[in-house]
Structure formats: C-alpha cells, structure tokens
C-alpha cells in the first residue's frame, strides 16, 4: 500500500492535519484510528466549552469533533477504524493491523504523528496501600460514565486537579455520586481556572492544595482513602491526615504523550514534554515526520490542538510537494526562568511562516509578571500577564519580519520576568 501522507490518530489533531493537508494539495491521505470511531477522546468529553476560539461558540466535545469529521468526509479523505499502528520505521514504512485487513504495511512520503496522550496511572504515582477495584484514572471513569453509561462509584475522592479530574468531579456528582474531596499535591491546581469554579466551587466540593493520598484501604473494593498535607518537600506531614470512607479514587495527575511509536522509529523526544522535538514546521528529527496535538505536548484547549495540527498538515503537504527544504540557519529557543519548554524548539528564519506561535507552559504560578523574549541578548518584547499557572498554556508570537532584522542571532530566549 502507498499513500502520500499517513496520519496516525483520528482525534482532533489527526482530523485537522488531514483537512489541512488536503486543502494544501494532497489527495492521497490515510488516517489510521485505533478506536471504533473518529474523534478521539473528544467523544467522551460530553461537557461544553470546546471551540470558543475556533467557532466562537461553546460546543460539546462530540460536537466539536463532528465538525471536523464532517470536513474530513466532505473531502473524501480515507480512514481506517479499529486499526492499530504497530510500528513506524525510520524510512516511513508504517505497519498496521486490524481484523479485516490483517497486518499490512504502507509506504508513506510523510507521516503526521497524532496519537494523543495517556493518563499517569496509580502505579506510576507510587501511591502505597492495597490494590483493590475502584481506582480509576479520571479518563477511564469518564469513558465508563459517558460512553458506556455505567457508574464506577458512589463515594469518590479525586487525587490531582487536572482538567479531566475536575470535569469528572462535576460529572459524577450530576450522576448521583458524592464527591468528597479533590486533593492536589502541588500548591496550585493543574487545571483551568474556569474548571475549578464551574466543577468544584459550584458544587461545594473542597479542593485541598498541597495534599496527597497516603493510603488506600480495602482489599477487594476501595473502602477508604487517607490524604495528608505535604510540606515544601512534597512529603506528607504527620498529624494532618484526613480519612474518607469512600469506594472510589479517581486519579487526574497528569497526562503523558504516547510516544512509544515515535521512539521506536527513532524520533528524538524532549525529556520535559515527553513529546518529539520539533522545528517551526512541526517536523521531528526525522525528515517528513511531523507531530501535533497531545502527542507533541499536552494542551489545555482543543482549539490550540486544531491550530497546531492545521500547521502540521499544511507543512506535511509542503514537504510532500516540494521535498525537504534545507535551511542555512536554525535558531534554538531557550526556555529559562520559569518557562519549562517551548514548541517549537527550533526556528529556521528563512523557511518559517510570516507569523509563528510559540507555545509553552510555566513551572509555577506567577502573579503580576511578564513574558520576555530576547533575540540573542536584545529584549524584543515584554508582555504583562496578571496570572500565569502551569495548568494553562502561554504563547509568544514571532514574525519572520522581526527575525529578519536580527540576522546574526543564534538563539532566542523566552523567560518570565518581573513586570
């Protein structure tokens, strides 16, 4: 089998990349999706709030996905469902498998990685205690409730204040469960401010910052959870324990880009994001392999995923039509002083688009600070931000014109400074 472009993953990133590639002149496209329908995790996100930036209205997850799916169908883009990509070779041969075609290979001219992310599990968090039923990642509980229609618990404690956990606090409450508390290890929430307000405050669910689960009781099903406050070293402080009689623990402690395929193919990954290292065209260390969405770095809003994926699709189309463009110069973006990483990491001034959005997250909560951008040692811009938090993505916009004024710089620094 041969396709110009293979897109691994039919969630919001894969869909937007496919649409953009088609609109930029590529006809031979295949989307490979492991689940039974297109749309990815959006299908289980039945709450609203999606698409404010893209469509200027509040959509549910399935509605947002369906608009992109409709565009894919209109364009006649091919896709395979219930199909697992087993391997991506460095020469862009994709091996995949499903029940009807068996195991098959596709020679692709370009690949877009759009596999999304997974949730950090109880095991990875090393929470001591028993291992009974009733411990779910928030996303698994969300699938059970919203897709399958089953209630995984009656009395619930949530560890971690990631967005899915906050959403599930509200969701479980609306379906008749009692959510007793949300504990967050860090002194700040990992989720969006609006979710704290709408999902916890509005339902009188307490949020305990700087708290963690120190014990899980119950041999077959969860019977109780003990949380405790943690000190600055994140170790539990004796005497601060709070015990809850409950049957369920939901975990919302971070998302990890699913890059096993990327890694096996030889794509270089960032230790900070766990996603591929990319340049301004979202191309990875392997020529013709692009990445976008949560497999690249975990996003807060799906709108940004769609924007990013649109760029990846467009750039993949360019690559297929014109081949790899060699740049004389590549500038590295250095994230320092509170900026944890940037996507992209490298910029090629002569090849970049006229405007480029650099996205990143900060390492802690900052109040009354500013995002400063330096070309070499020269301060180029300083933008005040009343509040910045690790749960929300930040951005800096760079233009080709700006960079043209500084032809000699070798790096760009983005950092958090006093306002």
């Amino acid at each position, binding site marked *: 089998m041969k396709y110009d472009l293979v897109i691994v993953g039919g969630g919001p990133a894969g869909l937007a990349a496919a649409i953009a590639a088609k609109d930029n002149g590529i006809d031979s496209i295949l989307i490979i999706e492991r689940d039974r329908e297109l749309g990815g995790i959006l299908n289980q996100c039945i709450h609203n709030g999606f698409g404010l930036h893209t469509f200027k209205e509040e959509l549910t997850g399935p509605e947002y996905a369906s608009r992109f799916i409709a565009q894919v169908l209109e364009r006649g883009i091919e896709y395979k469902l219930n199909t697992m990509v087993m391997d991506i070779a460095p020469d862009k041969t994709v091996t995949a498998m499903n029940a009807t075609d068996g195991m098959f290979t596709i020679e692709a001219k370009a690949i877009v990685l759009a596999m999304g992310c997974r949730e950090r599990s109880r095991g990875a968090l090393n929470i001591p205690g028993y291992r009974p039923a009733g411990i779910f990642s928030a996303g698994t509980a969300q699938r059970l409730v919203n897709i399958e229609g089953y209630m995984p618990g009656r009395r619930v404690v949530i560890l971690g204040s990631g967005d899915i956990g906050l959403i599930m606090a509200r969701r479980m409450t609306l379906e008749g469960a009692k959510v007793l508390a949300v504990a967050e290890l860090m002194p700040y929430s990992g989720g969006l401010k609006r979710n704290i307000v709408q999902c916890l405050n509005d339902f009188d669910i307490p949020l305990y910052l700087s708290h963690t689960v120190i014990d899980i009781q119950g041999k*077959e*099903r969860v019977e109780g959870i003990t949380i405790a406050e943690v000190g600055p070293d994140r170790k539990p402080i004796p005497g601060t324990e709070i015990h809850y009689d409950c049957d369920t623990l939901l975990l919302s402690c971070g998302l990890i880009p699913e890059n096993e395929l990327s890694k096996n193919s030889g794509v270089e990954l960032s230790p900070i994001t766990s996603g591929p290292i990319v340049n301004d065209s979202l191309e990875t260390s392997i020529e013709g392999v692009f990445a976008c969405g949560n497999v690249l770095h975990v996003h807060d809003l799906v709108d940004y995923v769609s924007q990013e994926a649109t760029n990846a699709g467009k750039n993949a189309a360019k690559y297929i039509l014109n081949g790899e463009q060699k740049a004389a110069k590549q500038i590295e973006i250095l994230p320092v002083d509170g900026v944890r990483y940037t996507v992209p990491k490298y910029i090629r001034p002569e090849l970049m688009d006229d405007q480029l959005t650099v996205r990143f997250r900060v390492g802690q909560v900052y109040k009354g600070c500013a995002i400063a951008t330096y070309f070499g040692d020269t301060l180029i811009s300083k933008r005040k931000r009343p509040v910045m938090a690790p749960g929300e993505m930040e951005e800096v916009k760079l233009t080709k014109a700006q960079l043209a004024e500084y032809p000699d710089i070798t790096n760009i620094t983005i950092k958090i400074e006093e306002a």
Partner: protein
Amino acid sequence: MYDVAIVGAGVTGSAIARELAKYKVNACVIERDEDVCNGTSKANSAIVHAGFDATPGTWKAKLNVRGNEMMDQLSKDLDFPFQRNGSLVVCTKDQDPALLDALLEKGKQNGVPDLRILDREELLAMEPNLADDVVKALYAPTGAIVCPFHLTMALAENAADNGVEFFLNTEVTEISKADDHYIIKTNKDTFEAKAVVNAAGVYADKFNNMVSEHKLEIVARRGQYMLLDKDAGSHVSHTIFQLPSKMGKGVLVTPTVHGNLLVGPTAEDIDDKEGINTTAEGLDSLGATCSQSVKNVPLRQVITSFAGLRAHEVNGDFVIGEAEDAKGFFNAAGIESPGLSSAPAIGEVIAKMVADYLSLATNPEFNGIRKGILNPANLSVEERNELIKKQPAYGNIICRCEMITEGEILDAIHRTLGARSLDAVKRRTRAGMGRCQAGFCSPKTMEILEREVPMSMFDVTKNGPDAKIVYGYNKKI
C-alpha cells in the same frame, strides 16, 4: 469420596495436582479465591533460584535444585515463559568476600552446577550497570526467570485437563478426621477425601493444626516490589542479588521474562495474613537499597508496585510430608522462597507420598502437554495474517500498551480454568499489565467478559466477588 483433596491452587497445589494426575486418582483442588495463582504465587520475585542459598540437607536445598533441573522440560511441555538468564550475588567493597566463598561452598554441597566467583572486570563485561562498589560476585548460570502466573496456570490447566477437578471460590473452613478419611467443610459443599494435601500457603498452619498435634506456625512475611516499564527492562540482564548482611537479605534487581525490570522485595513479618498492601516506607526502602548493587535504576519508570506474603514457617524449612499423627494428611507448608523454584519438585515428592499411601496405579492416559495462549507477536507476518483470516479477533488490539489482541483474551476466557475477572485476563494475557495499567483497555475487556462468559457487567470484577468495577447504570446507584 475423593481419593485426595488438595487445599490451595497456588503453584504448590497446582504442581501437586498435576503430578497426581499421572496416577489413576480421583482428585480435587479446593481454592478459596476466584482464580488459581491468586496468593503468594502471583506476587513474588518471579525467579527460579539456582539453589546455593539453602542450608545443605534441608528440603529447601533438595527441592530447589531438583525443581530448577525440571524447569527446562516443564516449560517446553507446558508452554510457559522460562529463561536461564543466570544470577549474580554481588559483594561490595565494604562486605566480607568470605561470605561469597561460603555461599559457593553451600551451593556445591547442594549440587548446584557451574558456580564460580567473578571479579569486577568480568562482571562489568556482563553487567555494566553494577554499582561502583561491587568488587566480586558469585555467578550461578542456572539461575533463571519465569512467569509465575503462567507456570501456575499451566500446571493447573494440565492437571484439570487430566481429570483433576478444581473448585474455585470455595473456602475451606474446617478439616476433621473420620475413621478412614477426612471431612472438609467449606463455605459451599462438604468434601470427603481419603487423603488431604495441605498447600494452603500462609494458612497451612491453620489446617495442619486442625488435625495434628504437631503444630505449625506460619508467619506472613511481606515482600514489596516495584515493577518498571519495559524501557528499563534491559538495565540488567542477570538477576542481581545482594549478599545477605546484618541489614537483612537485601533486594534483587532482575529482568522479567516479559522484559520489565523488577526491584524487591522487602521482608517484613506482619500479623495480617491478608496484608498485601504496600507502604511508603517499604517502597522508599527499595529505592535506597537497590542502589547498593545496581546503579541508576530508573525508578521514575515504575509502572506498578505490589506486595506478596511469603509463608514463613518459624523453623525455617519447608514442611513436606505426612503429619505423624494424622495418617493421610500431607503437608506442603511453609513454602516461602525458593517455593516457586521448588514447586515442580514438591509436586513430585508429595504425589509420590500420596500415591504410596493410597497405592495408586499409574495413569497411562496422562497427557503432560499443554499449549499456552498463543502469542501472535511470535508469528511471522504471513502466519499472523493466516490466523487473522481464520479468527479476525487476532487482528483486533485491545491492550495497546502490551499489544494484546481480542483473540488472546477470548482464548484466556474459553480455555480450561478460564478467566472470569479483569485480573484473571491480565495474568493470562498481560492485557492491562503495561504502562497505562489498564486505563484504556479495561472497559473493552469488561465488554468481552460480559459477552463471552456471559455475565452481567455488574458482576465483572477486578479480582474476587466484591471487587466490582461498576455499580449500576448512570443515575441508578
């Protein structure tokens, strides 16, 4: 009336059952839990010891070496993963190298083949990640790793296929002696058997003490472990033990047959024979201790932690054989480490004793061959496509982390002593055992169990009757 009833379907009880099936016998295994391999057998170091550690002349020494010898053929006959990766007991510069010599000497007396002591240079060529302080090690090439789930299930399935009856979810509450047989009361039926084999793990003392004045005392010795991602699986290739010291027996670092890295165990005597919880102190101590033998163990890649209980009899050795004052009551008790390694040999010895007691004839129809669950990853692409054509479920990946297909899960459910819970599917196929720890695949596996067993979604459990996953439909709980 059964000829013999075995209490406990762990690796010991299952090995005994299979060996007994080589005789013409009416035998049953009575197991408290919903699946075989659900106690000590499922939570241990997953290694087959070479046999240098036990005191010469003890049951532990004899049965370990014999069990180790038996594993190659057994793994072929019963189709379970087994790998002779060799083991090293490392000695650091602060430790007494004479202790290594003593181990070597014990090993020779026990009949362990090919033992030798290696210096640092030879060691580094074998294991570049050994700690900087390691100066010498005892190398045992016959040390091995095994999948304890598959070993136990293979033994049990093969026993069942040869006519041994298994009663799961059946908890023995009382054993008493009648004139020429035993009466075994359970939470369900009452069983009668001419002979009883006590393979009840941490509870073996309780059952022995119901019929014998030679009291046993079994202490639950907890061992906590951390299992690391397959990315860390090649950090070491041999099983690395620490020299036993005043500070305790130390922890081992070993690859598993499935390619993960395992670090553990702790050793804590506890009162609760159900205390399979991990503790913050225990897990922290593993991290600190393992660095004494292996450097830079990537503990950030832990995917799960667990604890198991060793059945430690206070006199230190396995308790093997007929209770003196209870004819026909055979103990396989105190089976702590090296119990997994010894299990096939324990089976042999106990079955022989029972056969002699009951004057059993050999069973000419015994078929000792069992096929494991097919792993399509071991097939060529052509073979795999043939398989998918015939059985499309083998083309449908359910567990994305371990790449486990629906076909394998169907096999796990429909074979002898088939899986009835998420954990039972997991132990048989590895679905849910990978880095996401069943986050993505558990709803799919639940659907398959619901459809195939068939059973109500509300009766699907993680492991055991009260381990329910979902309570009801939305808004109806």
